[in-house]
């Protein structure tokens, strides 16, 4: 935060700005962006250091914790953290068994990774919005967005991974021809060969849209929910600067919204995992 007393708009904008490291279009040097406009001008060749840092930190935290638990895992009586880990693994395993009917060793670990990782990233939303940015500010870091899932890059990145896997397994299971047929021979079907060919463009258009809409909706759903939640936290945080009465009201609201937000945090992580399983199931099954 540059100025002493930012306006409301500045405050909100500041909170929505990622710490961007990229190539300055004017002189081609790799620098940190000092404003939203500068970050935008960097175009594609820029990276959100805060998103990368928090997501990798949380992902590493997840894998470190679960790896430790995995090393202690045995058929003996579990206790403590191992119990918790086993509970989550069992939960994910049940979900995978429930919606995925094929043999694939990747799906369950993929679902577990997505669920816990997204859950941890979403949970960062419950940390009061000014804490970490303020600490970063004291350390001289200008921008700090701590919830990676409010950055579409993060959600699109995961959805892209899922999308590639969907394509891979579609082609692997059904063959290139089978997959192409799936894209062009339905939903409009005909037994006459000429009609069949006539239906191909319409079918392909519909199927292609539905294929592409899967990763887009998967990532936008998560991003939208978390972004909106974050936005409301920011707006509530604005109340703290509006006098004693508003500050108390803000405290109550923040608490209430945080409680409600726990539901969204969990639910969105669960939905992301479940839809990933469902998409992979669809990739494996013949129509």
């Amino acid at each position: 935060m540059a100025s002493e007393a930012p306006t409301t708009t500045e405050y909100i904008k500041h909170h929505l700005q990622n710490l961007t490291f990229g190539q300055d279009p004017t002189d081609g040097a790799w620098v940190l962006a000092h404003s939203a406009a500068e970050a935008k001008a960097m175009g594609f060749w820029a990276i959100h250091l805060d998103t990368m840092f928090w997501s990798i930190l949380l992902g590493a935290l997840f894998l470190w914790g679960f790896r430790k638990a995995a090393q202690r895992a045995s058929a003996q009586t579990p206790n403590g953290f191992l119990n918790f880990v086993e509970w989550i693994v069992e939960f994910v395993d049940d979900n995978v068994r429930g919606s995925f009917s094929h043999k694939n060793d990747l799906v369950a670990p993929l679902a577990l990774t997505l669920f816990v990782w997204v859950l941890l990233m979403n949970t960062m939303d419950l940390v009061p919005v000014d804490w970490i940015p303020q600490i970063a500010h004291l350390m001289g870091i200008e921008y700090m967005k701590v919830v990676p899932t409010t950055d579409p890059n993060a959600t699109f990145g995961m959805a892209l991974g899922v999308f590639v896997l969907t394509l891979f397994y579609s082609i692997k299971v059904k063959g290139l021809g089978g997959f192409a047929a799936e894209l062009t021979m339905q939903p409009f079907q005909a037994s006459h060969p000429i009609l069949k060919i006539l239906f191909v463009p319409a079918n392909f258009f519909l199927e292609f849209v539905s294929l592409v809409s899967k990763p887009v909706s998967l990532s936008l759903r998560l991003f939208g929910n978390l972004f909106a939640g974050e936005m409301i936290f920011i707006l509530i945080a604005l109340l703290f600067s509006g006098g004693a009465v508003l500050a108390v009201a803000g405290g109550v609201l923040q608490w209430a919204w945080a409680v409600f937000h726990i539901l969204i945090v969990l639910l969105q992580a669960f939905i992301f995992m479940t839809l990933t399983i469902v998409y992979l199931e669809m990739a494996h099954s013949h129509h």
Partner: protein
Amino acid sequence: MNINLTLIGQSIAFVIFVWFCMKFVWPPIISALNERKTKIADGLAAAEEGQREKARAQEHVAQVTTEAKEQAQEIIRRAERREVEMIEEAKGNARAEGERILVAARSEIEKEANLARESLRGQLATLAVAGASRILAREVDSSAHAQMLDDLTAEL
């Protein structure tokens, strides 16, 4: 909120995390869980088997007890029968022995009586002869009347 290199970075991070999870996290946990599941299932099966075994043992115990009771009853019945038999036998023996003793006593008594009679008869004859000889001191010759006296003795 721009789409940029972060997208690629996130995808790479995602791939690495999933790979790590698939390699080092998921298999040990799920195999431990499955192993425990099998162990618990085995334990439950063993417990059930134990229950069945117990039920069988109880049945066996009940059967053996019933048999033992029946045998005891049989032994008691036999003993009672034997008791009655023994009493009856003893009674029969006693009766026979008593009768035998009675018969022996009777014949002894008869024998004694006969002896006494014989001796009395003899003595009476002697007495009669003595009395008669006193009366007939002079008139009767014992040798002459011996025939008559013998007849008399036989008549007594």
